[in-house]
């Protein structure tokens, strides 16, 4: 399968949240108890039972009101921090570009949660498995659109081949920029390129997402420096221990010590 992409055109999103419901309907995810947080928003973050939600951002400037909507879900990054962080090799990439969690392998450690720049994957503590958007891989591999895309009435979500979606995004950006000079794409320049590409009307920070999302430095240090160095340290220590044993053996220290002990025991016995 060729690389796929979902283009999220926030300029068309009406914040109806059908995507969130359709996701739950397709993936049999239970409803959660919520209350309003701000504006009309009630879902605060992805959870093991909420794989996509909309955040709402009210911005009033120079007498002009803007009500900005942002759809959150797994971005299915090309350089997936979660995958790098996963100690269990449970996270993998598909040919189509999706980042998936193999629940046979997942151990529920939550390293993916902590290392995802958006904290998308979440561990269900009752089963100790991490859950997140699957990109509806079962639908797309079977020729259907992802559930969120297929339900989106205002046409804010598009699904297709990666290059086709990128082109569409560029075209829309060109149009939208006329009215919203700060409009920009989000996703193409981060994490090696994401599978969910956004058209935003303003800076990512206005939507509460980091503009410079990247694999955390700590993760790189951890996996690429600390682990190899630590391995060397332990290996070195192990070699030293073995070397020490051999050296002592070669120097006859064990024999001598043995004698000493025997002597002292003899003494004891003699007393």
């Amino acid at each position, binding site marked *: 399968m060729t690389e796929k992409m979902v283009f999220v055109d926030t300029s068309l999103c009406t914040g*109806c*949240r*059908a995507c*969130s*419901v*359709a996701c739950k*309907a*397709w*993936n*049999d995810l239970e409803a959660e108890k919520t209350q309003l947080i701000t504006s009309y928003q009630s879902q605060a973050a992805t959870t093991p039972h909420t794989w996509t939600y909309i955040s709402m951002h009210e911005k009033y400037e120079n007498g002009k009101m803007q009500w900005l909507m942002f759809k959150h879900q797994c971005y299915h990054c090309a350089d997936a921090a979660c995958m790098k962080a996963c100690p269990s090799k*449970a996270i*993998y990439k598909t040919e189509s570009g999706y980042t*998936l*969690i*193999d*629940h*046979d*392998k*997942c151990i529920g450690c939550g390293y993916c949660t902590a290392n995802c720049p958006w904290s998308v994957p979440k561990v269900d503590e009752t089963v100790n498995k991490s*859950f997140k958007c*699957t990109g509806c*891989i*079962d*639908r797309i*591999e*079977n*020729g*259907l*659109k992802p*559930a969120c895309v*297929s*339900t*989106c*009435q205002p*046409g804010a979500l598009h699904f297709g081949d990666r290059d086709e979606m990128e082109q569409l995004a560029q075209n829309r950006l060109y149009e939208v920029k006329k009215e919203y000079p700060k409009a920009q794409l989000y996703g193409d320049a981060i994490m090696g390129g994401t599978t969910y590409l956004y058209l935003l009307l303003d800076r990512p920070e206005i939507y509460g997402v980091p503009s410079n999302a990247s694999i955390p430095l700590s993760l790189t240090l951890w996996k690429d420096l600390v682990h190899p160095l630590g391995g060397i340290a332990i290996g070195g220590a192990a070699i030293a221990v073995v070397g020490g044993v051999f050296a002592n053996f070669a120097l006859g220290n064990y024999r001598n010590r043995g004698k000493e002990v025997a002597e002292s025991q003899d003494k004891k016995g003699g007393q």
Partner: protein
Amino acid sequence: MNLTRRGFLKLSGLSIAALASGLGFDLEAAEAKGYALKLSGCTKIPSICHFCSGGCGLLLHVKDGKLVHLEGNPDNPINEGGLCPKAASLEQVAYSPDRPKTPLYRAPGATEWKELSWDEAIERIAKKTVEIREKTWKKTDEITDAKTGEKKTVPANRAEGLAMIGSAEVDNEESYLLTKFARLIGTPFHEHQARI
């Protein structure tokens, strides 16, 4: 890779065994890769959304009489498969534990419901309707002739005590029978949500 795919299937709680019938995609090829669709083996039955007046098409995927999944009907030219959150949530009505299971009866002054059979319910309603109809029948009205100014007696044929709040929430056929029923039993006091 096999393991990982199996893991995925487990996540979706799906059976790989089902066969595709008339679903319009190559299930075998898909299954070879391991991504089985929970819709395989389902009959697709179109319906219509029950909220605003858009008339968006629903598509129900039904297996062995059970609803497996509900989503927008891509072949309906109004919504082309799209649904709003209300419509997208409609599969939660199908087996809602909160839907009453039988007719319910609340006696005068009672503080709780009790269950009733349909036969009992229909009989009770019909008898009461007849009783009120008899009691409140208005055979004639006195009116003033607009032209002559004379008082005259004209047929009224009304059951004054019966009223009906009909519905924009039911099908045309049902709505029509509500009108027909109300007029036949003698009540023009028939209104509904279109008014509000």
